[in-house]
């Protein structure tokens, strides 16, 4: 699974992205985030307030219940501020 982080999510986690293989129980975005939070204090801090996070699965905006699978590109980021 290819993970990407943007904005303050990237800054708090301390990296722009990484390839990870979550354990078998991780089947949706919410489970992925819960698992990521166990990986260290930067993750816990970045992902603490789930309502402040936005998610894209394979470059499409997705909800917390969206499925994730091996090979997916999952991006976690703050609300967008384009324009």
């Amino acid at each position, binding site marked *: 699974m290819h993970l990407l982080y943007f904005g303050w999510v990237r800054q708090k986690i301390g990296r722009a992205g990484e390839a990870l293989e979550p354990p078998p129980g991780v089947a949706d975005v919410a489970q992925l985030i819960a698992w990521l939070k166990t990986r260290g204090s930067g993750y816990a801090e970045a992902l603490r307030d789930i309502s402040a996070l936005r998610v894209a699965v394979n470059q*499409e905006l997705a909800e917390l219940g969206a499925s994730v699978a091996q090979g997916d590109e999952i991006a976690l980021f703050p609300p*967008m501020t384009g*324009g």
Partner: protein
Amino acid sequence: MIRVQREDFDVGSEIERLSAGNVKIGGIASFIGLVRDFAGETRVRAITLEHYPGMTEKQLEKIAAEARGRWPLEDLTIIHRYGRLEPGDRIVLVATASAHREAALAACHFLIDWLKTKAPFWKLEDTSAGERWVEAREDDDHATARWLEKR
């Protein structure tokens, strides 16, 4: 035409390109977003725009398709910059061409409203009080939502 780029763009040639050779166009509306030197009470020295390459282009294409579905447009342009920009620098250009002025004006307004909340960009301000991420504004969510009601 949709472009995501670090470089500046030429406003005149981008707008003129929209109508070149198309005598069905009665109006071209455009909006240019610029870096301001303040945010609230704080002085801004620069902003750095980060984006999600790949998804950005897809989202801009989707927003453009939505505009084309809602209004009879002859053409449209979106150019969005990323990287470090200073006060006075251009950030974004949206331009719409239509036979009818109302369509051009409404589509232009729509595009910039939706870019604000649906284009995967994030802005880091370099201010006199240190660095800080620009937060999403509730006003911008309302401006986005207004077009859903109008649909």
